């Protein structure tokens, strides 16, 4: 893929958690949590460096840490690299904050100091790193701490042709707004300084949103991996990610809603579930849920398809149409999700909204269609109705294994409106349309200037519903542009609109992935 101005800056994350459960040993290690493995990795790296300092890289004292690190990296990452990062004294395994206990504290502190001493911000280990660990350790401890230590180490590693272990530079702290920071006495005097411009604030918010979105997906994968086995499921990481998303949503819903345009073919379930969570929370915000309730709804929506862990992959990933038997299996996933929650959490700790989300999200509003087919009336709870709408919208706008062609957002909305009162709560559906916009976020539009643009923010004024904020992606000649946002309500001095939508374009017809433009950072 050629990189150009219009290309996004996304980098394939070296997060390990997507790999967990995908034919990895970690999926078989039922009760070991990622935190435990990450802590072990930090511990053995500490031992490796200390022993190298004391005895040299070729000493047998390094045998055990080398072997252990090799095993851990393979376990955590399978065939992908594993990263450990240090930021503001916290240690991260991929993007996952490794929570510290009193027992771990000295070990973590030692690791942090070791990296800091050479000016490094992180360490990346490839699955085949074991062969190079001794030489790496030798080089690492041989360089004296100092301003250019990191560069010197990197140079020595390159000279030694060591590519399986890399040191990263520190990342800058992501500065952000703190709530209520402006005071009569002046600006915030906390750790993080306030942003100076609205554009910069938005960019930072978008960065936070991407991070929170990614973490939600990571947490989802972890839970699904554990759900496939047996053992207690903790939703803490997911909860933290969802709470972050709620914070951003309450500041600027469009920022997070834009991320729901992400469609990934081979990680459909992950993106889909996160999108459903985001859409559900956005809709829930409109109907009056409190902040804490929004997080609960979001968490429930994130795991509404938990039951699919019991559906055979051969069915889940079947290309082409389902036959009757496939449907019969697929239709069990709502109930399977409930049972999985019982199994892993026990009765008292089953999150009720989450169980309802799993059980009810295919039930349909009219209580007469959908599944599971019940022997008695079962009205959906409000949050389930919210999630049902979000689920359908995202599913239909996605390309999935068994239905490769997604539908453009406006078409999906129209379809759903046709089902108001049967499949969907009509009042909630109206709220949803307001939420995503009559011309929804992610819609590709042709402007009267000949430019091609994508809707990134729905219209806020009822009477100007056709004037959302759009992101121009190509000029009239068709040349891709670095994305730039324009509010279609903008007029010139004479009050004439600068730009007007003349046509909604079916992006699926041209196979254009709107996520490239909606979810990308913008100037």
């Amino acid at each position, binding site marked *: 893929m050629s990189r150009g101005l219009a290309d996004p800056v996304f980098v394939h994350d070296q997060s390990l958690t997507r790999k967990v459960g995908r034919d990895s040993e970690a999926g078989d290690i039922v009760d070991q949590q990622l935190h435990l493995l990450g802590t072990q990795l930090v511990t053995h790296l500490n031992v490796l460096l200390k022993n190298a300092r004391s005895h040299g890289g070729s000493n047998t004292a390094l045998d055990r840490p080398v072997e252990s690190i090799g095993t851990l990296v393979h376990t955590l990452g399978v065939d992908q690299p594993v990263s450990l990062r240090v930021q503001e004294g916290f240690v991260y395994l991929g993007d996952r904050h490794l929570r510290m206990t009193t027992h771990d504290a000295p070990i973590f502190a030692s690791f942090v100091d070791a990296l800091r001493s050479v000016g490094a911000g992180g360490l990346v280990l490839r699955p085949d790193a074991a062969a190079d660990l001794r030489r790496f350790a030798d080089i690492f401890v041989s360089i004296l701490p100092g301003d250019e230590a990191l560069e010197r180490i990197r140079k020595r590693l390159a000279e030694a042709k060591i590519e399986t272990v890399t040191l990263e530079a520190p990342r800058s702290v992501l500065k952000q707004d703190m709530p209520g920071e402006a005071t009569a006495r002046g600006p915030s005097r906390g750790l993080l300084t306030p942003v100076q411009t609205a554009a910069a604030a938005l960019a930072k918010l978008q960065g936070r949103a*991407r991070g929170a979105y990614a973490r939600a997906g990571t947490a989802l994968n972890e839970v699904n991996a554990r759900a496939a086995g047996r053992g207690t499921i903790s939703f803490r990481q997911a909860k933290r990610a969802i709470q972050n998303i709620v914070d951003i949503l309450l500041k600027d819903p469009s920022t997070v809603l834009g991320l729901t345009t992400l469609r990934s073919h081979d990680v459909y379930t992950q993106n889909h579930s996160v999108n459903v969570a985001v859409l559900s929370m956005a809709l829930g915000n409109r109907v009056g849920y409190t902040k804490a309730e929004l997080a609960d709804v979001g968490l429930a929506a994130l795991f509404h398809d938990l039951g699919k862990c019991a559906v055979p992959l051969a069915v889940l990933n079947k290309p082409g149409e389902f036959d009757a038997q496939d449907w019969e299996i697929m239709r069990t996933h709502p109930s399977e999700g409930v049972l999985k929650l019982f199994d892993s959490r026990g009765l008292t700790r089953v999150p009720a909204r989450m169980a309802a989300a799993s059980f009810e999200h295919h039930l349909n509003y009219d209580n007469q269609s959908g599944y599971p087919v019940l022997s008695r009336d079962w009205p959906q709870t409000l949050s389930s109705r919210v999630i049902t709408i979000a689920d359908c919208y995202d599913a239909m706008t996605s390309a999935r294994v068994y239905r490769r062609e997604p539908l453009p957002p406006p078409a999906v909305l129209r379809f759903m409106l046709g089902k108001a009162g049967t499949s969907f709560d009509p009042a909630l559906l109206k709220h949803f349309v307001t939420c995503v916009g009559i011309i929804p976020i992610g819609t590709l539009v042709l402007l009267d200037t000949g430019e091609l643009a994508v809707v990134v923010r729905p219209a806020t004024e009822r009477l100007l519903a056709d004037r959302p904020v759009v992101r121009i992606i190509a000029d009239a000649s068709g040349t891709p542009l670095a994305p730039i946002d324009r509010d279609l309500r903008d007029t010139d001095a004479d009050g004439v609109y600068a730009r007007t939508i003349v046509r909604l374009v079916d992006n699926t017809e041209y196979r254009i992935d709107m996520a490239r433009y909606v979810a990308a950072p913008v100037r």
Partner: protein
Amino acid sequence: MGAEQAQDSPPQGGDDAAEVISARSVFRDLDKTWRATRTYGLKNTVTTRFFEQLEGQTGRHLGEWPVLAVVVDAAELRLRGEIVYRGEDSLGESLAFRLYGDGVRELRFEAGVSSADLHALLDALWATDNAPDVDDDVVTRLWSKDLTTISFVSAEDILQSPSSLELQEGGFFAPPPASFAAVIERELRAAHGGPGQQTAAAGSAAEQLQQARGGGVVGFEVTETERSAIARALALERTIDERGRVLSMLSAILTSERSPDLLVRAIAVVPAILDELLLAGDWRALLDVVAMLETAHMSNPAMGLTHALLAVRVIDSLSVPHRVTLLGAGLNADPPRPIAGLPQLLARLSPQATGALCGVLADTLLPEHRAHLRDALTRLGAVDAEPVLKALGHPRGEYVRDLIAVVVSWKQPQAVDVLAMLAGHVDRGVRADAVKGIAALRGEGDGSPLVAFAFDGDAEVRAEAASLLAAGRYLAPFDHWRPHLEKQPLDKLSRNDKRALFRALLASAGDSAVPYWQALLGERGWKHRKAKEENALLAVKALEALHTAAAHAALEAGVKAGSGPTRKACAAALSGRRKAAAQRQG
């Protein structure tokens, strides 16, 4: 304390010095309150006093400096580089570490912090209101409090986003084109009514746009009626009985699902549910779950024999020792659980539960609960008595008395021998109940089980047993009495006790006791002379009442062998007999 250590180092810079000193006081008070909360709880007077100090100091600080934002490190809190709190050596007892370990990097207080806000902060630190669970930590709890005056920055907030969102590669969507010219051209043609193909999607979108352009966003406006309905639904959701709802889902699954495998899994989650409900002492809910399992197959044709057998096995497992033990834990929960449903639950237990149920009874405190357990053991023990009888050896008096009541209720005379063994029990109440129990189970006949109780250390027990033996309904040959008489010298007993004993001996042993009394008649010597004389005189009385030849011969021997008063008494007794005999002949 932590903050006091921090005060050893004076702050740098004059202008900020006062602020730092004040901040140190705030965190000193927070530290004290936090520790007191952990040790004593929020409602304790010590905690309350510290809390008031904290509230006061925080208010004063924020009144002067409206924002207090500290950076959190593993062992310290710092205000613009100055340490305002330092944890103690054990990191587990450090407020800073508590925050840092869960990923809080900055903590911030703003003017207007209320008492409720501070309480919420303490609760978030220690989860005092709710039991901590695996889904929460300081960050999630603090977030959920939604405080406007206390905020924080977490590890996730700090982490520079790595833009880790992956776009689709190799799926439906194509790589981004080098030019959109063809797209624009085609769409422009279609927009102007040209020959360009108009897809259904675009067409529908045009209609939608037109509708939107019409300005009357008809159909998308939420009416007041609809808003009210949503508000009602939201209110309903907030008040829903969550556990009941979740159990209803399970019930719906059992009664509606068609997949045999899924039904097996649904049944398989029930044992753990039973455990939880037992532990919680929620008998009613447990009975509902059992009923659900029992009736599911009647309403779900997909349930086959396998499922029915599985369900039966699960229901029967209520009686396994592990579950019965959980029942006991639920019974003794604090605060006590309502009793509703308990008798019905106990009625479902099978004899397999008897042994474990005895253990539950042993540990159960409330009389009302014990009464129900006794009833259950009465029913179950009638089939399998052994665990109950074995448990009679337990040292706890109240428990054994309950068991005696159970045993007696069976009305099995064979149990008398078991109750007899309680003569050596440490608890006098047990021994007293054992005597009553023996009497209840055996109204006459072999009185030997009672003999040991006639020598009991407790006067009432002795009196009861002796009285029963003296009533004339029981037989107990002297061989049963001898070991006790040898162990218990008569000299130690009061005159009344001796009298009662001899009456009992007389009524139950009869002639077999004559040699014993005769021996008493012949006892002489200066040591314990008075006691020996008393014993002898009582023996004479007993022999006199025993109108047998052996008694007569013993009295005659006593005339020759005993002490003076004894010989006199024997002679008088014999004389009395002769007179009586003469009167009868006359």
